[in-house]
């Protein structure tokens, strides 16, 4: 179905939920993953401009190779910048593109440049690596509260989240 839609509307956004369900069904997994769905959306109005705010970067990439291991939350110092972030165990379009350029998915260098040019008030001392887990409950009750605690300790005002 998803490929049929792509053929009809080649420039429309990919329907990843349909595509993923069709793929896993074809691989013999009849029970589809239930993507989180919410109609109520929490919202915090920013209290000050970005140029006066402290920003933290949150990614789904990891600072260590986790292939074959249980994925977990990592909180790492922003400086020195990591030379590499691991992405191979994540679902992304490995047929079309690559992740050799950190700035294409982990834009810390650009953010630090924006701090230098005063577009951003400051960058938090740590960045956060969120594991993409099957268990939404674990994300909501363990990882997200731990990230919140870290952000508060870092005096963060705004968070930029970049899933691959």
């Amino acid at each position: 179905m998803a490929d049929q839609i792509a053929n009809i509307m080649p420039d429309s956004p990919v329907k990843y939920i349909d595509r993923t369900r069709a793929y896993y069904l074809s691989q013999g997994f009849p029970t589809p993953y239930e993507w989180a769905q919410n109609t109520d959306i929490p919202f915090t109005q920013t209290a000050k401009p970005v140029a006066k705010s402290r920003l933290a970067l949150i990614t789904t990439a990891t600072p260590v190779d986790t292939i074959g291991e249980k994925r977990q939350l990592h909180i790492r110092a922003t400086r020195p910048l990591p030379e590499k972030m691991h992405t191979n165990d994540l679902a992304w379009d490995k047929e079309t593109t690559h992740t050799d350029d950190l700035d294409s998915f982990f834009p810390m260098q650009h953010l630090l440049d924006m701090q230098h040019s005063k577009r951003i008030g400051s960058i938090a001392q740590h960045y956060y690596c969120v594991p993409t887990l099957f268990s939404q409950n674990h994300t909501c009750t363990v990882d997200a509260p731990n990230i919140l605690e870290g952000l508060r300790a870092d005096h963060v005002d705004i968070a930029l989240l970049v899933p691959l």
Partner: protein
Amino acid sequence: MCLTARHLEANGIATVIIGSALDIVTHCGAPRYLFTDLPLGNPCGVPYKPDMQKDILHRALMLYETATKPGTVENTPHQWPGNPDWRATYARVK
């Protein structure tokens, strides 16, 4: 990632998600979302295209200041410069 954004937002930290899976992120109910219509893997712009990457970040930063309601979604004008059939090939059932 969207679930994390929702938790932070509910606890007083404003968030912006930059991502390329429009249906997944909007399905989950993201507070602020900058959609980049690029292959999964490069949500912040095409590799080694720093001008595009910086423009995407500027647009994301604007969202903190301009969004006035939950569920705000913005697009970028940037397109994938490579294989035009990339949308059809991801996780295709052969």
